């Protein structure tokens, strides 16, 4: 039976949602074991992981140094030495970790995947490329495979009969690295669901003129996260963590609402694979309309308040 190691993403000691998605996918590939790097997991986290299919939770701690790609890769390698397949959430850090682990083990790597399955004894992945305009299937020729999975591409599902995951501590000594972590300055986290994982994203661009009140309110009503274009973050209207696009965060929510965003190729590349796309823009020729399921040509200062009111009313009814 194939052993599938899943690197757990954590938020404040809890299991982050993308990991539940990754575990769900892991179950379709073999026997999932979770790898937890950091302070020891609590009972709730263990239960959560077990409910989503982890048979074991292998725990190791490298302290702050665990933030360095080399240390993290060594930790994952130590905990997943018996795994045929390693699944991680496709973040910038994990892409580096996957690369280093592959160099160590000879595994083949695909990152930014939307799915994976085993075909004739090898892992094959699906993903979108070129600003999500093409679908691609990639076969990993190597015996061992590492796959980075994008959030929101698999529906997380708990087991019908949840089993308990067995916690195991892995002895690990962090390797010396030529890189030194000088300091770590935490960034305040936006409330609610993180952008990359949100089922709904409402984004504002230059068309907001710097006022995000309406965008935030619509996001609140829809239970979503707030995104932005690069022009908006460059203006300092909203922090860089909110930027959606090829060099910002790639999002694949069920619903993406673009407000006052023209739809430059760099922006589209980070959101084009979203389920449903809605755009509000004053310019009928804005490229964003080419990829929108619903486009509303109009001033966001008129359209959004009316939409918010109508949604609230429908909810109240």
């Amino acid at each position, binding site marked *: 039976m194939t052993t599938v190691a899943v690197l757990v993403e954590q938020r404040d000691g809890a299991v982050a949602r993308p990991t539940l998605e990754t575990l769900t996918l892991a179950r379709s590939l073999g026997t999932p074991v979770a790898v937890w790097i950091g302070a020891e997991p609590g009972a709730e986290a263990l239960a959560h992981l077990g409910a989503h299919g982890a048979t074991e939770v292998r725990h190791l701690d490298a302290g702050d140094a665990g*933030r360095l*790609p*080399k240390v993290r890769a060594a930790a994952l390698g130590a905990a997943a030495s018996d795994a045929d397949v390693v699944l991680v959430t496709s973040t910038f850090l994990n*892409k*580096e970790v996957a*690369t*280093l682990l592959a*160099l160590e083990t*000879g595994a*083949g*790597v*695909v990152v*930014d995947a939307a799915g994976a399955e085993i075909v004739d004894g090898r892992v094959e992945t699906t993903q*979108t*490329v*070129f600003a999500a*305009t*093409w*679908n*691609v299937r*990639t*076969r*990993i*020729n190597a015996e061992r495979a590492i796959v980075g999975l994008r959030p929101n591409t698999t529906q997380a599902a708990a087991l019908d009969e949840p089993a308990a995951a067995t916690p195991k501590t892995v002895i690990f000594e962090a390797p010396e690295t*030529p*890189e*030194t*972590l*000088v*300091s*770590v300055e935490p*960034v305040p986290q936006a409330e609610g669901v993180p952008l990359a994982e949100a089922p*709904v994203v409402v984004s504002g661009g230059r068309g907001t003129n710097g006022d995000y009140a309406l965008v935030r309110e619509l996001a609140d009503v*829809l239970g979503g996260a707030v995104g932005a274009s690069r022009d908006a973050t460059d203006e300092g209207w909203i922090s860089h963590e909110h930027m959606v696009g*090829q*060099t910002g965060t790639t999002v694949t929510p069920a*619903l993406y609402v673009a407000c006052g965003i023209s739809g430059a*190729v*760099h922006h589209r*590349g980070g959101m084009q694979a979203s389920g*449903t*796309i*809605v755009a509000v823009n004053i310019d*009928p020729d804005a490229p964003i309309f080419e990829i*929108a399921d*619903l*486009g*509303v040509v*109009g*001033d966001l200062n*008129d*359209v959004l*308040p*009316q*939409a*918010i009111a*109508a*949604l609230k009313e*429908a*909810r109240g009814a």
Partner: protein
Amino acid sequence: MRILVTVKFTPDLQSQRSFTDGSVTRTADDGSMNELDENAVEAALQLVEAAGEGEVYALTVGGPDAVAAVRKALQLGAHHAIHVTDEEVAGADVFGTAKVLAAAIRKVHDETPLDLVITGMAALDGLTSMLPTALAADLGWAQLTLASELTVADGTATIVRHMPDAHETVSAALPALVSVTDEANKPRYPNFKLIMAARKAPVAQWSLADIGVDGASVGAIAARTTVVEAAPRPPREDRRVVTDTGEGGKVLADFLIERGLA
């Protein structure tokens, strides 16, 4: 300060991109240097300018068209250009490409030592961000990746890395590999004088034999991954654009409710 910048030829983002036999189709007339590599060239030029001395090398690996990428770097102000081209490189994956780049970098470094290798954060055509890590590992140099800020002083490079939960400051002794994000700087525009000079500037052409790399170890046969299917995504069906004449917000709300999204 001697810095080598790796640059990649990529198809123009605005043009239609496609796949042929599992590889990205690239043509000379609709491609240039990967946009994000402009930040790498800029970072190198700024360091050399601040040091008041030094040289910038631009290096690319790829077919005959790829020379456009190093020409662009020359236009921006790079001093030397190297183009590694060899039929056996075709189909290389990220590890193969890193191996070829590393061999070429060693050839430069062995002649006169380099202080830094700088790369872009990703190639906008593939966007995997894996290459800088693979290249640093192959060179056996420190990896300072995804730098939003870069400073070099007293034989040490220090970067600031913007991770989603924290800003990290990481440092390493030179020589080191740095990848810079598009936040790191604002790339300059080529000036006329440099554009003219770049046309005539020599570009060193190296084959795999020149850098001591066995083709079988890097090309398609060695690749750990193969694209087995590629197809354009079907366009979205039933797209609708309405003009707000006073009811636009309601239309939007109704649409979301209808689709079960609100």
